[in-house]
């Protein structure tokens, strides 16, 4: 090959330019910490990185929702625990005051305690999480249970997504557990209405009606069982939501790790690459300078 001045200088410019570009790209990748920034850097990975990130975001949101649902069911369970305690105490009073040895005055005192228990149950059933009344179904902006024992919430289920496209009931149906609401007939079963039973107990005690007091025993026992069943169901739901939270978080973390693996620079590799390109750049400079020094002009006198 015939070597000309333009060839020497053009090649020098081109080769040092390439070496410098490679070194600069390696430096930038290391400084930036990512190897895919523009989609053109690696089209397939660019799409996958976004897919993983969006999936991670979705799973994080699901995890947040299921975690909140689990917290809410925990709050419901705690409230039902209070109801259960109150009902147990009411049953004790019923058994105790059904005995003929107790006086009317003592039954009056018992009636007052039952009134307090009723108020305590109503208060528990008007539990809130944040600004929501958790036992009111979807009508959650006002206390669902009134002091007279009536229920003003609705009969709707709340559902929370536990995995993409999969939902799970997230509320405890106090209208079913404590008021005996029957979905099929859309009516209340008075025999299962725990609040009405408490009211009947209070009234019987005030009237010193021993038979009436005894008549509430089955209803109270049934109520305790209903609440226990509702709590058992809440426990299952809480477990489901806890599992869902854990699964979504793990899946989200896995997506973020995968996205990171594809987008983030391996520091060791990037450092080696930077060193290699800098060495190549220095070699290119040295070779270029050497070729510039070689000229017949240095020898002609």
């Amino acid at each position, binding site marked *: 090959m015939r070597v*000309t001045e333009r060839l020497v200088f053009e090649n020098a410019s081109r080769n040092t330019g390439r070496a410098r570009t490679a070194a600069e790209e390696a430096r930038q990748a290391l400084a930036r910490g990512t190897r895919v920034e523009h989609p*053109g850097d690696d089209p397939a990975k660019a799409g996958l990185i976004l897919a993983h990130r969006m999936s991670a975001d979705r799973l994080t949101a699901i995890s947040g929702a299921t975690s909140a649902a689990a917290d809410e069911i925990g709050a419901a369970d705690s409230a039902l625990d209070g109801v259960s305690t109150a009902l147990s105490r009411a049953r004790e009073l019923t058994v105790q005051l059904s005995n003929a040895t107790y006086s009317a005055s003592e039954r009056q005192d018992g009636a007052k305690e039952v009134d307090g228990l009723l108020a305590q149950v109503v208060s528990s059933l008007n539990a809130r999480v944040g600004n929501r009344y958790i036992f009111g179904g979807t009508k959650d902006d006002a206390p669902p249970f009134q002091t007279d024992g009536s229920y003003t919430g609705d009969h709707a289920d709340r559902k929370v997504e536990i995995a993409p496209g999969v939902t799970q009931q997230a509320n405890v149906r106090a209208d079913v557990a404590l008021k005996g609401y029957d979905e099929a007939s859309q009516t209340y079963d008075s025999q299962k209405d725990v609040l009405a039973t408490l009211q009947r107990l209070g009234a019987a005690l005030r009237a010193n009606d021993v038979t009436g007091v005894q008549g509430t025993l089955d209803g109270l026992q049934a109520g305790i069982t209903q609440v226990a069943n509702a709590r058992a169901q809440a426990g299952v739901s809480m477990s489901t939501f806890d599992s869902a939270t854990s699964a979504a978080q793990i899946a989200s973390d896995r997506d973020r790790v995968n996205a990171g693996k594809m987008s983030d620079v391996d520091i060791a590799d990037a450092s080696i690459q930077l060193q290699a390109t800098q060495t190549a750049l220095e070699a290119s400079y040295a070779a270029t300078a050497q070729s510039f020094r070689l000229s017949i002009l240095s020898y002609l006198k």
Partner: protein
Amino acid sequence: MADLLSILSGAATSLAAQRAVLATAGHNINNANTPGYSRQIASLETITPAEQVNGAFIGRGATLGTVTQARDRFLEAQIPRAMGDAAFSTAQSDALQAFHGLDVTDAGGLSSAVSGFFTSLRALAQNAGDPGLRASFLGAAQALARTFNSTASGIESARSGLDAQASGLAGQITTEAQAVAQLNVQIRQARGSGAEPNDLLDLRQKHLDKLAELAGATTVPTSEGDVNVTLPGGVALVAGGRAGSLSTTANGSGHLDIQIRLPDGSGPTILSSSALGGSLGGTISARDGALKTAGERVDQLAFDLARAVNSAHEAGYGLDGSTGLALFTPDDPTPNDVTDDVVAGAASQMSVVITDPAQLAMAGGAPVPPATTPAPGDASNASLLIATESATLPSGKDVQSAVSDIVSQFGTSTANAKAYADQDGAIEDHLTSLRDSYSGVSIDEEMITMQQAQRAYEAIAKVIQTADGMLETLLNLR
């Protein structure tokens, strides 16, 4: 017998010839770095002997024969195409790499806006009556619309920037074409005097190279010594001493078309993309190729997502009892009829219709009379809205896959353009290196040539000195 005066005369001619050799070497050195310059070679010729002495011819020295250029026509014929291809793919690659609206690291990009929208929706579904969460979701919806707006406007800005670049390139091409046409005339006139106008030929070649780079133009030499220039596809740009001109004209899509007025004055005619090469072709290709496709796909995604969300939203009820309201514009009034869909511009026009968070239709159940508003915690319609994230859009993909695909496809176009630019650039570099090697100036060679001419000049001077001495000897005879 060769007389001494003839020797002096021959020596004088030879001195002039050596001076021409030196001058040519000097000219080469002076132009060692001139782009497009081809080294010149001064060829000396022996002056035909005019005198025969005792049957032998006595030479009369040397004279300058020709000054030719060192040019490899085979190489030069390949270079315009290589330059055009390299310029095309480089312009396309540079344009696509300069667009950062779909970057993976862009925190304000489409993917994060879509994720933000559905994350806020999921939070709202937990507590549909909460005013703070409603306001937050409305904000996320507005952010999503703004992100579609900014992505679309970013793509359009990039395309408009390429319009401006194409307009400038069209002007440069016209200037270069006029220069070639004028040089055709000047070269024809110079050749009329019998000599080869090497420097004019170099200058014309330089302009032809520029035309190849700018427009992918190829040259067709004529028997008269002109070169005609054609654009890819054979459209004439230069015909002898006449040049065509390129200009731009606005088209219906808000961008510029390239039009040509032909060398014969006819036109202007709009050039198809197949007639555009070089930097101009690459610029137009980036504008109407990957960027346009990305814009169309973003529009399609905006339209499909808005339609899916609106369809679910319109079926639900707001806290205030409102129903049938779209969340986003543009809305598709007939979701099942694709024939009336106006997809173009959907992303740039996307906005949130609802301004009152209470109108966000999270409830699926109608208000039960006498109530006029739904239960505040009813989030059954929110579930339907959440389902749009996984729903298959008319494009055949869900929203997440659609975003990934848009980015991936744009990335593939960019990576392909870059690969072509690297490959075409390497071919161009190789060919121009070969041309530089053959036609370029070597200082070493020219210095040696100068030394050669200097030595010969000194020797001829010695001949003159000797002949002069001999003449003096004769003149001093008594």
